């Protein structure tokens, strides 16, 4: 007989305990949802949360062009794309940099049979455009490249294309990766010829002669 009131008293406290517990759970769940990583460019496999990030370098944004003039402080005057291109009529037949007369002189173009407007967006020169006409930000240029260069993009997603620095073991530290245009000039994407460095100088590579063969 004496036990029942004790039991009921404990039950009376239950909502007081359950409500804060539920509240904490709801807050944690909403935080977990809002902490979801940026899925704009999902990596090949979603890393567990305790791994350091793989950071892909991105272009700064829409490029600017040097007008060749200096301002009163001696700094070069640069123009944004839209400074000229809001009034200029786009020419869809323009293919070569050498055909440009007002600006962009000396621009080397050697990228298959692409024309300027294959990638540049005539409706908004501050952005690029995909093959289906959808605009894409300069910072997301890899999405544009990947349309045609699928095998390279697949290799890239698996870490088998493109330079990188940092950690192979993401539990120990982060990794930084180049994007397409860090290494490939989008207007002439073939990797340029280089002069090799550190010519080897070891004794076995020197042409042998009877005099120094046994020195």
């Amino acid at each position: 007989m004496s036990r029942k009131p004790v039991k009921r008293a404990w039950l009376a406290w239950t909502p007081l305990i359950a409500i804060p517990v539920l509240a904490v759970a709801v807050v944690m769940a909403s935080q977990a949802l809002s902490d979801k990583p940026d899925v704009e460019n999902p990596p090949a496999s979603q890393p567990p949360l305790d791994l350091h990030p793989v950071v892909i370098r991105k272009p700064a944004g829409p490029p600017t062009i040097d007008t060749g003039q200096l301002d009163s402080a001696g700094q070069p005057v640069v123009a944004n794309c839209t400074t000229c291109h809001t009034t200029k009529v786009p020419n869809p037949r323009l293919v070569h940099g050498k055909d440009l007369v007002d600006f962009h002189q000396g621009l080397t173009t050697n990228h298959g049979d692409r024309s300027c407007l294959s990638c540049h967006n005539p409706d908004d020169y501050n952005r690029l455009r995909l093959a289906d006409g959808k605009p894409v930000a300069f910072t997301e240029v890899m999405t544009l490249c990947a349309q045609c260069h699928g095998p390279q993009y697949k290799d890239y997603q698996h870490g088998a294309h493109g330079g990188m620095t940092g950690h192979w073991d993401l539990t120990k530290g982060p990794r930084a990766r180049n994007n397409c245009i860090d290494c490939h000039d989008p207007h002439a994407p073939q990797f340029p010829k280089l002069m090799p460095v550190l010519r080897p100088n070891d004794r076995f590579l020197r042409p042998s002669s009877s005099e120094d063969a046994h020195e």
Partner: protein
Amino acid sequence: MNDSNKTSLPVLNNPTRRTAIKAAGATLGALAFAKAISPIVEWASAETSIDDMLQKHYKELGSDDMDQVIARLEEDAKDNYGAEVTIKDQKPIPGVKFAYALNLSVCVGCRRCAQACHEENNHDRASSNSYIRVLEMSKGSMDMEQGTADYDHPVPQDDKFYMPVQCQQCDNPPCVSVCPVEATWKEEDGIVVVDYNWCIGCRYCEAACPYHARRFNWTKPEIPAEEVNPDQGYLSNRIRPQGVMEKCTFCLHRTREGEMPACLEACPTGARVFGNILDPESEIRWVLQNKRVFVLKEELGTKPQFFYFFDK
């Protein structure tokens, strides 16, 4: 028997022609021997302390011993090179076995990897030494013995391809089996290492390596103090003494800390892929499973852990 023979030394008292020639021969022999070993005596007294001479094999050093050895080596680096260095004894990571892959379709032969190795691993400056030899090869040939390493013109040439060769970290390493003093061995994570303080410099391993991957320190390495890489490993990039062998360690002082090797970070074309071959999700495993992969001189049965591949 007469009295004079009893009391005096035979050689001095009976200077016969035979004894005189014996004495002269013995004196000349002793002088010649002293002259012959004098380089060793001079070298030992100048460069080698008693502690150096009495140091135990790497595998027999306790952690206290290793602390003392490292303190001594750091002191030596200060005395000989004027450089403040930190030497660690990085251990293999359990569950990790390193492998490397190199994409011959994108390597342009610029030798940036060899230069990064040269700087990272404290190589002798005058000899431009590096653990990587980039071979310029004629398209259509896969014989590395026909490659040229000292080309000096803009790269890539149209009729050539470029094949960097370094230690292949073989699973069946001939360099290890020929060592007469067990100064070189294969570690748990696959890296073939050298205890530079145990190596006697016989160069058997250099002769045994089919990839020409081992180097000998003909002279004391010369490096300006400000160019010495101070982050060093006992089994990797600490400055080697004269007269010992050395080799690529996949930069174990970096890679056992989770970092990429220096040659990979320096590659401007991203031709190099590095990682843990035991991890099925690793980049190296994806390359091995999805690319046309081959190893150098497979017929020798050395089981290299360095792989080459082409994109197409």
